[in-house]
């Protein structure tokens, strides 16, 4: 057990515990905040694994942008403050499938890697990754930028009722939330 192993185990335990809180907590807002802890611990794992640029991009994009988007959605859908007990479905099938997937994959990976050790790879700095992206992976990179543009346009189109839906649905949709308030 080296110091890298101890760091990996500790950060992995934090990430797993926070992920368990995300899927079990009764507070909608707290689930988003536990998600911040889990994603931050995974970013720390990336740092220990010498993936420096990926760690910072994870902090910027996931912890910065995605979690803020999720919390905005929690706000805009008027999620209740405080504990709610109607957030879950019955748990036994989910426990069976989720536990089966997690433990099955764990057994496969433990069987594949045993207790081998590898040296820490050279650090994945921005210079190294940028060279790789723009030398070997230019085409997927450009396709990805087109996909981001399509997702942006799609999100705008979906969230505007007068464009995305038929007129009678758009007319019906405005009184529907109002009369249940």
């Amino acid at each position, binding site marked *: 057990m080296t110091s890298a192993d101890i760091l*990996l*185990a500790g950060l*992995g335990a934090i*990430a797993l515990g926070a*992920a368990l809180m*995300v*899927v079990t907590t009764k507070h909608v807002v707290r689930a988003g905040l536990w*998600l911040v802890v*889990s994603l931050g611990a995974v970013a720390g*794992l990336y740092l220990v*694994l010498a*993936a420096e*640029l*990926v760690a910072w*991009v994870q902090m910027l994009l*996931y912890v910065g942008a995605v979690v803020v*988007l*999720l919390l905005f*959605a929690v706000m*805009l*859908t008027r999620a209740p403050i405080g504990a709610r007990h*109607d957030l879950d*479905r019955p*748990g036994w099938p*989910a*426990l069976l499938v*989720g536990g089966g*997937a997690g433990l099955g*994959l*764990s057994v496969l990976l*433990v069987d594949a*890697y*045993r*207790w*081998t*050790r*590898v*040296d*820490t*790879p050279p650090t*994945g700095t921005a210079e190294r*990754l940028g060279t*790789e*992206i723009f030398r070997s*992976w230019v085409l997927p990179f450009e396709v990805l930028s087109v*996909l*981001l543009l399509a*997702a942006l346009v*799609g*999100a705008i189109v*979906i969230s505007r009722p007068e464009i*995305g839906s038929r007129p009678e*649905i758009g007319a*019906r*949709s*405005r*009184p*529907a*939330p109002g*009369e249940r308030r």
Partner: protein
Amino acid sequence: MHPVIPYVTAALLFGTGVYGVLRRRNAVLLLMSVELMLNAVNLILVTADATVRAALPATGQVFALFVIVLAAAEVGVGLAIVLQLYRLHATIALDTVALSPPDDTAPLPPPGSPPDGPPDRGGPPPDRGGPPDGTGPRPGAGAEPSQPAPVGAA
């Protein structure tokens, strides 16, 4: 460094995400569980990049970056869909969503009849505006509220 530690962490994270996707009813919580699964896959990619000697250097990290961008696009479109669902049904509980369009639109008209909305909002202003208007433009607006108004005004 023993690569089995992050591998097992990633596998258990993925299992947690699967559990959350199957367990949660709230659409936003379900998207959070999907984020957990995507993170597990990213962790596998980065660990494999440190473990396996590939033909191209740093391929796993490049793919992890690609998956992060895909997750950002996914969560943007997913949240737009969730907000539209909330606007149409006033709930984001996933097991109350009917899968066929006629079932969606059929129960809506009886409670949410559109002509009821504007008269309710248009009703109060004539009553509040009655006393100041009672002196002048009385004839067209309302017969009932105008009758007590002139007594108080006179």
